[in-house]
C-alpha cells in the first residue's frame, strides 16, 4: 500500500464488511463513498485507494463514479464554504453573474478550494427563500439580495473577520 495520510476508520470498515456480505457488494460503492465523504468532508485519492483495495473495485471505476456525481467533493471544503443558490428565482435575478464574480475573485471553480484553505465554492439548488433572491450562504449565514458588485466586499469582510 502507498503511504497514506488518512486512514479509513472502523465504522466505515464495518460498513464495507457488511456490504461485502450482501449480494452484489460492488453496487454499494456509492453508499460507501457517501460515508467516507460524511466523515472526512471529501474524497481524496488515498481514501479511494483504500476503498478500492478493501472492496476490490478498480480505482479507475471509483474515480469515474466520484467525478460523475456532483455531490462528491474531491477537495476538502474551505473554512468558509460559499454556496450560491441557482434556484429559478435566484437565477433569473442574476445568480449566474454572482457565481462568475466569486469564481474570478477567488480564482477557483465550483467544487474547488482556495490555496489558503479559507474559501470553497459551490452552487446549490433552491434554498426556499426566494423572496430574498439572489441568495448566497457562507457556512450557515445567509446573505440576501446579493449582486455581483458586492462580491469583493463580501469576501473582504470575511477575510478581515478572519484576521
Amino acid at each position, binding site marked *: *500500500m*502507498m503511504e497514506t495520510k488518512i486512514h479509513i476508520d472502523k465504522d466505515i470498515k464495518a460498513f464495507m464488511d457488511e456490504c461485502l456480505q450482501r449480494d452484489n457488494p460492488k453496487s454499494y460503492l456509492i453508499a460507501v463513498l457517501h460515508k467516507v465523504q460524511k466523515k472526512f468532508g471529501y474524497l481524496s*485519492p488515498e481514501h*479511494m*485507494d483504500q476503498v*478500492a*483495495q478493501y472492496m*476490490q*473495485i*478498480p*480505482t*479507475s*471505476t*471509483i*474515480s*469515474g463514479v466520484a*467525478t*460523475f456525481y456532483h455531490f462528491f467533493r474531491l477537495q476538502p471544503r474551505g473554512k468558509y464554504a460559499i454556496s450560491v443558490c441557482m434556484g429559478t428565482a435566484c437565477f433569473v435575478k442574476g445568480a449566474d453573474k454572482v457565481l462568475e464574480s466569486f469564481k474570478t475573485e477567488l480564482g477557483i471553480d465550483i467544487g474547488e478550494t482556495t490555496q489558503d484553505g479559507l474559501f470553497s465554492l459551490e452552487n446549490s439548488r433552491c434554498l426556499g427563500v426566494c423572496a430574498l433572491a439572489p441568495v448566497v450562504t457562507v457556512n450557515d449565514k445567509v446573505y440576501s439580495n446579493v449582486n455581483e458588485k458586492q462580491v469583493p466586499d463580501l469576501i473582504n469582510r470575511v477575510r478581515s473577520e478572519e484576521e
Partner: protein
Amino acid sequence: MKKVKITIDDKEIAVAPDITIMQAAEQLGIKIPRLCYHPDLSLEGACRVCIVNVEGWRTFAASCATRVSEGMKIQTNSPEIRQARRDLIELILDNHPRECQLCERDGNCELQNLAYSLGVRERLFEGRRKRHDIERSSPSVIRDAEKCILCRRCVRVCAEVQGVFNLSQLYRGFNTVVAPAYEGPMNDSVCIACGQCVNVCPVASFLENRSTDKVWEALADPDKHVVAQIAPSIRAAIGEGFNQPAGTAMTGQTVTALRRLGFDAVFDTNFGADMTIVEEAHELVLRLEKNEHLPLLTSCSSGWIKFLEHFYPEMIPNASSCKSPMSIVSTLLKTHYAEKQKIDPEKIYMVAIMPCVAKKFEAERPEHRTDFGAPYTDAVLTTRELIWMIKAYGIDITNLPEEDFDTPLGFSSGAADIFGTTGGVMEAALRTAAENLTGKPLDNLDFTGVRKTEGLREASIKIGDKELNVAVANGLTHAKEILDKVKSGKKTFHLVELMACPGGCMGGGGQPYPPYGHHVLDREVLKIRGEALYHIDAKKQVRKSHENPFVKKIYQQLLKTPGSDKAHKLLHTSYHAREPRGIK
C-alpha cells in the same frame, strides 16, 4: 434453437434468435456502418452510427445492440437513415481536431473513413471544443484526450480482455474524459503498457510513444554502430503494411530493407529466443527436480511481467528470471559481440523492432542497463513505426531481394520463430526440456496440443515417465483465470506460458492497423499470422533451440553451462512489486 424469421431490406431470412440486427444483416452481405462496435468487446451502443429503422418503432434502433425478434421488418437504408448517420458523424467531428493531415492515423482512421464513406464533405458548425494536453508520461503509450470520441473501446479492452481496468470515463457530459484513476499520468497507474488501447482506438487518442526521431538521428550519425534486431512476429505481419495479405512471410526482404535504411548489422531476436529457451528449460528441469516454485511462468512478454508486478507480486518467485529475447540479444551485443568485434560498446546503438509497445517500457527498466549506464536497448520501434520508416525512405519492400541476417546473433532455430505466436514459447521450451529430461532425442517435434489461438488452454504432455501439466494463456483476463487456478491448488501445473496480448505477439500493441473494413484483433488474422511462423519453423533444418550452433558456441566461449554464474549475470533479471497495486 428455433430460428426467427425477419425481413431486412425486403429480403426474408431465418436467423438464430440470439443474434443482433447487425449480425443478421451481415449474413445477407449488408455491412451496416459502425464505429464504437467491436465483436470481441461488450456492446456499448455509444455512437449510434449503426442505426436502422425497425417497422413500428418510434425511433431508429442501434443495430449492434438490438436483438432480432420474430417478424421484425428492418430497413438499413433510406435517405433519412443516411442523413441521420451523417449528422451523427458531423456532431462527433464538430468536437474533433481538424488536423487530419498532421495525424498519425491519417489514412487509417476509422472516423475519417466513416466521414468519407457517409459523404461528409463540409463542416457546417464551428462550436465549442474540448481542450486537453497530450499525456506523454509513459514510454509506451501516449494519450491524447482531445481526439477522443468516447467510444469506450479502450476502456472495454483494458477491462474485458486485459483485466487491468486502468481506464475509465471521468467527469460527465461535455467534460467527460477517458483516463486512468484521478486523471493521473499513465506512467503512475496500473497500466501494463500492452498497447491494446492503441490497437482498438478508432482514432488517434492512444498512440505508441514514437521513437522514430531518435532512430533517424542515430542512423545519420557516422560515429554510431547502429544495429537492428527484429522480433519473430514482425516477419509475418509487416507485409500487411504494404498491401500484402496477412501471413505473408517477409523475413529476407525486411533484412534487406533494414540494411538499406542504414543499419550496420541486422540481427534476429530469434537468437535471443533460442538462448531464452535453453536457460528457461534448464530452470524448468531444476525446479522439477527440486519440486519448488512450480509452475514456472514464462517471462518473455513485458506487458505480462508488468501485470505480474502490479497484480500478482506474490507470484514473482514463480516467474522465470530469464530476460526476454530482446534484452538477451541487446545484452550479448553490447558485451560479447562488442568485445569480439572490437567495437566500443558505448558507440553501439541498438534498435529493437517489436510488435509491442510494452518493450519500450522494458528497454527503459533500470535492470537492463550496461555497466556504463546506457540502456542495453537504445530504442524500440513498433511494426507500425518500421513500416512508416520504410515508406518514408522510399523503399519498395515487396520488390526487394531477400538477404540473410548477420551472424552470430542472427541465426536461429525453428523453435525461436514460433515465439511470436501464442503457445510458441511453450512448444519451444518443451522441445528442449524434453531432451534435457529424457536424455533422448525427440521423435516428434510438433506439440500440436498447444497450437491453438484460444485465449486459454491446458494440456498434459508425457515426457519420458513424467506427465507435465501445462497451460497457455494470452490476454490477461485469461492469465488471471489460470493464476487463480494455480493459487487455489485445485490442479498442479508445471509450466505456464503467459502473453499479455490476444494471440500472443501476433496481436501485439504495435502491429499494423487492419485494412479498412476489417476489425483489429480479428482472430482469423492472428491465426494466419501465426501459421506463417509454423511454416517457417517446419522448413528449418535446426528446430530445437539447444541445437542452434551459434548458441552452442556462446556457451562454449562465454557462458559454459546454462544457469552458470556468467549466464545469470548476463541473461537473467529480477522483478519487483509495483505500485499502485492492481485489483484482481
